C-alpha cells in the first residue's frame, strides 16, 4: 500500500508540471495581455488612458519580458508559496482570494449535504419502486433538474422574486455584514441567504445523483445474490441495506475526486448571476481581463485538488470494496 501511495504522489509532480504549462499557455492564447484588455475596457467606457502610466505598469508587472521568462517567474514563485500578484487588485493573489474561499466552501459544503440528503432517499425509492407513479413523478422532476441549466433557474427565480415578491435576491448576507468580521449574526445572515443558491446550484447535481443511484441500484437488485437473500427470508429493508446498496455506492466514492475542486470553485455562472461573493465570478473575471497570475494560480490550485481528490477516491475504493485490488493479475 505505501509504495503505491508514494508512486502516485511522485506521479503528481510531472502531471502538475504539465498542467501548469497548459494553464499558462491557454491564458496567454488570447491576443494581447492584461494591460491591453484594461485599456480596451477603459476606452469602451469613453475614458482616456495615460500612456506614460501604461508603460510604467508594463515594466513594473514584467509584461515586457518574453513568455518563457514570465512562466518561470510564476511557476518558480509557486514552489515556495508565492502565487504571484493580481494586476487587477494590485495586491498578492492570496489576499484577493482570502474571504471568498471561506464563503465558497460554506456554500459548496451545504450544497453537497443538500444534494445527498435529497438524492439518496429518492434514488432508493425510485429503484425499489421502479415504474410506479412515484418513480415516474420523481423521474420527471429529476429530468427537469438536469435539463434546466443552473443559471437559467437562477434567473427565473430572481425574476419571480422581483416581480411577485418585490425583493431582490443575490448576495450571501445582508449588505451591512459585508466586509465585517465574523459574528454570530453574520453567520445567521449567511445561512438565511444561502438557501436559494443552494437550491439553484444543487438542483442539477441532485437530479444527476438520483439517476445514477437508481441505475446502479437497479443493476444490483436483479442479481442472484439479492434473490438468494430474499429467498432465505431476510427482511427486504435489511437486504437492501446490507448488499445491493453497498454495491451501488462505488460511483459515489469515485465522485469524491471531482467533488474537491467543486467545493472551492463550484457553479461559476450561477454565482455570477446571483452575484455571490464566491471565487467563481472572480476566476471568470480574472480570465476575461487576463489577470494571468490570479487566474493561473487559481486554476493550478483546482488542478491540484483534482489530482489529490482522485488519489483519495482511489484509495477509498480499495479500502471499501474488496473486489478492487492494487496488484495486477487476473482475479477469479
Amino acid at each position, binding site marked *: 500500500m505505501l509504495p503505491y501511495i508514494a508512486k502516485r504522489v511522485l506521479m503528481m509532480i510531472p502531471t502538475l508540471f504539465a498542467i501548469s504549462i497548459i494553464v499558462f499557455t491557454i491564458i496567454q492564447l488570447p491576443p494581447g495581455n492584461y494591460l491591453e484588455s484594461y485599456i480596451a475596457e477603459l476606452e469602451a467606457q*469613453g*475614458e482616456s488612458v495615460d500612456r506614460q502610466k501604461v508603460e*510604467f505598469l508594463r515594466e513594473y508587472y514584467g509584461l515586457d519580458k518574453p513568455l518563457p521568462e514570465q512562466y518561470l517567474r510564476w511557476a518558480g514563485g509557486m514552489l515556495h508559496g508565492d502565487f504571484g500578484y493580481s494586476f*487587477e*487588485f494590485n495586491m498578492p493573489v492570496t489576499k484577493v482570494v482570502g474571504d471568498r474561499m471561506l464563503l465558497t466552501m460554506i456554500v459548496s459544503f451545504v450544497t453537497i449535504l443538500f444534494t445527498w440528503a435529497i438524492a439518496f432517499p429518492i434514488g432508493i425509492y425510485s429503484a425499489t419502486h421502479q415504474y410506479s407513479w412515484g418513480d415516474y413523478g420523481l423521474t420527471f422532476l429529476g429530468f427537469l433538474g438536469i435539463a434546466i441549466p443552473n443559471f437559467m433557474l437562477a434567473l427565473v427565480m430572481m425574476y419571480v422574486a422581483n416581480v411577485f415578491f418585490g425583493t431582490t435576491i443575490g448576495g450571501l448576507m445582508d449588505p451591512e455584514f459585508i466586509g465585517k468580521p465574523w459574528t454570530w449574526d453574520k453567520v445567521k445572515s449567511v445561512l438565511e441567504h444561502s438557501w436559494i443558491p443552494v437550491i439553484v446550484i444543487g438542483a442539477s447535481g441532485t437530479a444527476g445523483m438520483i439517476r445514477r443511484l437508481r441505475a446502479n441500484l437497479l443493476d444490483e437488485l436483479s442479481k442472484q445474490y439479492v434473490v438468494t437473500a430474499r429467498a432465505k427470508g431476510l427482511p427486504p429493508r435489511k437486504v437492501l441495506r446490507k448488499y445491493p446498496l453497498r454495491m451501488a455506492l462505488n460511483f459515489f466514492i469515485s465522485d469524491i475526486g471531482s467533488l474537491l475542486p467543486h467545493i472551492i470553485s463550484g457553479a461559476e455562472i450561477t454565482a455570477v448571476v446571483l452575484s455571490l461573493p464566491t471565487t467563481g*465570478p472572480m476566476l471568470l473575471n480574472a480570465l476575461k481581463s487576463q489577470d494571468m497570475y490570479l487566474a493561473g494560480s487559481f486554476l493550478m490550485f483546482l488542478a491540484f485538488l483534482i489530482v489529490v481528490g482522485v488519489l483519495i477516491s482511489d484509495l477509498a475504493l480499495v479500502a471499501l470494496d474488496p473486489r478492487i485490488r492494487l496488484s495486477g493479475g487476473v482475479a477469479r
Partner: protein
Amino acid sequence: MIRRLVALVALLCLAAPLLADEPPALAEEVAAGRLPPLSQRLPRTPRVVDVERPGWTVGRYGGDLHMLMAKDRDIRMMVVYGYTRLVGYDEQLRLRPDILERVDDDANRVFTLHLRRGHKWSDGQPFTAEDFRYFWEDVANNKDLSPFGLPRALLVDRHGPRFEVLDATTVRYSWDSPNPQFLAALAGANPLFIYRPAHYLKQFHARYVGLAKANAIATAAGSRNWAGYHQKLDEQFRFDNPALPTLEPWINTTPLPTTRFVLVRNPYFHRVDREGRQLPYIDRVIINVTDDKLIPARTGAGSVDLQMRYLRFDNYTFLKQAEARNRYHVYLWEKAIGSQVALYPNQNVDDPVWRKLMRDARFRRALSLGIDRHEINEVVYFGLGEESANTVLPRSELFRPQFRKAYASFDLTAANGLLDALGLTQRNDDGLRLLPDGRPMEIIVDTAGESTEETDVLELVRDSWRKLGIALFPRPSQREVFRKRVFSGKAMMSVWSGLSNAIPTPEMSPSELAPTTQEQLEWPMWGQYYELLGNGGEKPTPPDVQKLVQLYDEWRQARTDDERERVWLAMLAIHADQVYTIGTVTRALQPVVVRDDLRNVPKEGVMSWDPGAYFGMYHVDTFWFDRPEVAKVSKP
C-alpha cells in the same frame, strides 16, 4: 464686562452664517466632541455652490445613494463623479476654481494658485502648500517614484516649470513658454494631481523615514520596495486605499477586494450651498459590484438610485418598461463624441499609389459623399442619431452648420464626378474602378475588432461605395495589432469613433485637429513628428496640414478668447473642407436611470468623459432625496 459681551455678540453674529445646521449624520459626533463643529471644519472661505439650472433647488440632508459597478476598481468612478479638482468645469464648460480660492494666470505662463485658508484633508489635517511641495520635490522629481520623469501635462517642449512656494497657501508654477493645457489637465476627469497628502505619505517615503526603514515597512506589507509601496498607497485616482486622506465629497471606507463599497461623507468637505450648509447632501454612497452584463437587469429591477455606467442604448426599452413598477425614471443624455463611427483614410500609408490618392482631398470628399448616413442612422441607431461629418456638436459654441453638412450628404453623382475627375475612369469586369497602376480599387479597412457597431456600419458603407466602383473589405484584428498597422503605414484606412471631445470651448486645446501625436489615425507619422519634436516620424508636406500646425501654434500663444475662437474656427473649417476623417452619425444617446425622488439630476445632459467627468460637472454633491425620512437623522 460690557465690552466683552459686545465682542461676544459681534463674534456670534460673524459666525452665524457658518453656524448653519450641522449635517444630522455628524451631529452626534460633534456633540460628543469627537469632531470639531462645522465652522472649524470648513475653510475660512468655503466654495459656495449655486447651480444655474432651471429646477435646481437647495436640498435636504440624508439618505444612501445606491449604484452598481462591474469591477472592484470601478471605485475610481467616485473620484470622477465627486469631481473635486483644483479648478473644474461647470455646466457651461467654463473653468471655475474649486479647491483653489483663486488662480492668477499670467499669459498662460505663470500660474499662481491660491489655496483656501483652513482647508483640511478628510482626516482633519491641514491642506497647504506643503502638500504641493511634497508632490513636486518628493514624488515628481524623485527618480524612484517617477522613473519616466514629470507628467506630460507639466512639460512644454520638454521643459518642466519652476515651482515656488510663496506662503503656506500660495504656490506658483511658471514656464518660459505658454502652457495652455495646464488648467485643463487639472480639471480633467482623470486629473493631473499636483498635490499629495504629505503628512500621510511621508511615513512611507525613504527621504523622511530613511531608506532601510521605508523598505522594511514595504516588504512587511508584501511589496517589493518602498517605491512600489508608496505608489500603491498613493492612488488618489484609483481611490482604493481607505487610509489615504482625500478632498472628495465622499470617503471610501472599504478596502479591496469587496462586492460592496460604502462611502461616507467627508466632514471636512470644502463646498457649501447658498444657505451655508455643508455639502454633500447625501450621507452615504453604496456601490454594489456585480457582473457588467447583469447591471441593466438589476437596474431594471430597481436596485439603484442613479446609474449610467454599463447601460447601453439598446437597454432603453427594457428599462422604460419597469419604470413605474420600480419607481425610477430613464433620461436620455447625449454622448459628446464627434461621430459614433468614423473612417480614417491613412495619409501615411506605405503604398505610394494609395498614398497619393489618400492625400487628395477630392478623393476623400468622394468617399464621404458616397456614404448613405440616413440609412446608417435608421438601421443601426433607430433613427435617433444625427447625420453629420466628424465635427463638433451643436452644444458647442464653435459649432457651425456648414461644418456638419460639408460633404456629408449622400450624392453618388457628385462622388462619381469627383472620382472621374481624378482620372480613375478605367473599370474592370466587376465594375470596380482601376488605380493608375491597373489594380482594382479595393480599400481594406482595419478595425480593432471589438464592436459589432463598427462592422454594422462598415457593411452599409460597403454597399454604397460599391456604387462608386470601390470595394471595401473590413479587416478585424486586435487592438495592439491594429495600432501597429496604422502607425507603420500598413493600414490603408481604419475605423474608430470620431472627435473625442466634440463640445469644446475656445479655451480647450484643439490638439486633436492638428498633427500632435502618433495616436492620430489619419496621419500617425506626421503626428509622431510633432510629438517627438522632429526626432522621428515625417514632416507633413501638404500646405493645408502645415496651416493646421501653424494655427495650433497660434492657439498656444494666443492671449484672448477671441483669438482662440478664431483659430478654432479656422481649424474646423479646414477639417470640414479637407475631410481628413469621414464621420457618419452623431449624437448617440445614453440612458441614465434616476430614482423618482432623487432631485437635482438634470433631465438632459451630456455624457462626456473629458471635459465633464460624466456626472461630475453636474455636481453630484448637490443631488438629494426628497423623502420624508431623509429629514430625520440617518445613522452613519
